[in-house]
């Protein structure tokens, strides 16, 4: 299975990323190799293996309780840019 450069371009657009021609070629080869490896795994005969999907019981979910949040300093502390307690990101107009 091949992941073409066009597909890489499409994914890059969705992620607001820009790749050079060289990078496109490299990602295309890498992604194709990964999917080929997964294809190999698909060949393993699992028809005799019991379904081991784990299903969570409702009781294992969380009670609706409020616990302390992080301080504002901790929340925005790692942000490259902040302003009055807000994160600041480059404007992406939809």
């Amino acid at each position, binding site marked *: 299975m091949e992941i073409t450069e066009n597909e890489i371009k499409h994914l890059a657009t969705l992620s607001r990323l820009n790749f050079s021609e060289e990078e496109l070629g490299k990602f295309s080869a890498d992604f194709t190799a990964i999917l080929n490896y997964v294809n190999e795994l698909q060949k393993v005969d699992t028809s005799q293996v019991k379904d081991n999907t784990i299903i969570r019981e*409702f009781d294992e979910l969380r009670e609706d309780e409020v616990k302390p949040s992080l301080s*504002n300093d901790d929340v925005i502390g790692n942000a490259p840019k902040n302003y009055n307690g*807000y994160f600041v990101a480059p404007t*992406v107009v939809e």
Partner: protein
Amino acid sequence: MEYDVVIGLEVHSELKTKSKVFCSCKNEFKGEPNTHCCPVCIGLPGALPIPNKEAVKMTIKAGLAVGSKINDIAIFERKNYFYPDLAKAYQISQAVRPICIGGGVEIENAQGQKKFIRLNRIHLEEDAGKLIHNSKIGGTMIDYNRGGVPLIEIVSEPDMSSAEEAVAYLSKLRNILQYIEVSDCKMEQGSLRCDVNISLKPKGSNELGVRAEMKNLNSFRSVARAIEYEIKRQSRLLDEGEQVVQETRRWDDARNRSFSMRRKEDAQDYRYFPDPDLLPFRIERSLVDEVKSTMPKLRDEKIEYYVNELGLSEYDAKVLTNDLNLVKYFDKVVSYFNKPKFICNFILTTVLKKVKENEESDDLDIPIDPQNFANLMQMYESGKISQAICRDLFDEIWLNNADCQKLVEERGLAQNNNEDEIKSMLQELINEFPQSVQDYKSGNAKALSFFIGQLMKRTQGKANAQIASKLIKEMLD
């Protein structure tokens, strides 16, 4: 050419749990920016989301209220998109196995005709953060307090065919969600939001046309206006032999028109896949039964109660129960002063008129404390204050919620019910305005209201108008 209009709605409603849907941060509308945040809801690496039981129960409750089937196993999936309102670059949502499937609600148009609007599904997801574009600082400010707030999305089938039906459907859904107390449903605050899908097809045709999706509809009025606008826009295109393009459009309420946001070519490709952090979870029949047992009275039962037990007319009961906030307020006031019909009359006339003065808002908030309002009703009903004084006081305490009993005492606003005093004041007026006496005698009944008006002016509205009307007639006849 004539067209059939095909409309489907996606309604988002924030659940009023105490904590967020996948973490223990507080679920609160207000608050300083980025103060209800933790590693889970700001998407720090390695954080582990765990679903909130109450949010799941509320989703089941919403499903039961509209007749959905509840899935026995539900799955959370990642909806991938890159936009700064989500720190993780994906939203935890549901795709192939939502909590609720199917169902529907019945709507009624102005002519009383009923129509069943089918639902496709109700799923549970997380809300996104709030963005404020700020050109002064050259960027977008982000507050993640709302990120991770539980949100249900209710997806209808394309069963509506006019703005009127869409608004009726939305208002019915809001009513149901409020009654079962899973959401405040305030459109202005964004706890109820709505996207509209709309397409046209030649009248009678079975083939669906190309649809446009309308976003940013913040009130019932803008839903109606956006639909009207879109019907005109699409029919003009089709009439001129042009194509409608599949796209997302943003409604601009101030300019009363919509603008294209994105076309199909750059449509989002969400690449859903099961969230590996969240296992599929089981919804046992016993849980569904437990939720069922907590369902409150729905509107129809409440109407029956008001008509049969409190003696309200069916029409009044319907208007009153149209909004749960009003129902709760009415019930409280009646618990303090047990004259339901009297209170209902005042609410449906004076109070609702006041509420409607603020026409930008679909949200019904009465700022007067119910006990204070009950006291006002009690003074008015017993004749302690006149109708005119009651209205003035109502206007005043609407603004400041001051104690109306105190106001009456301090300002001496009690109604004058003393026949002798009223009579002598009327006699003075009769002497002063012989012309009006003449008018009355020559058949002008309006002259009577002139005397009552003058009397009220002199007594600052304190004279008992009923007594005065009776007396002036006796005196002049």
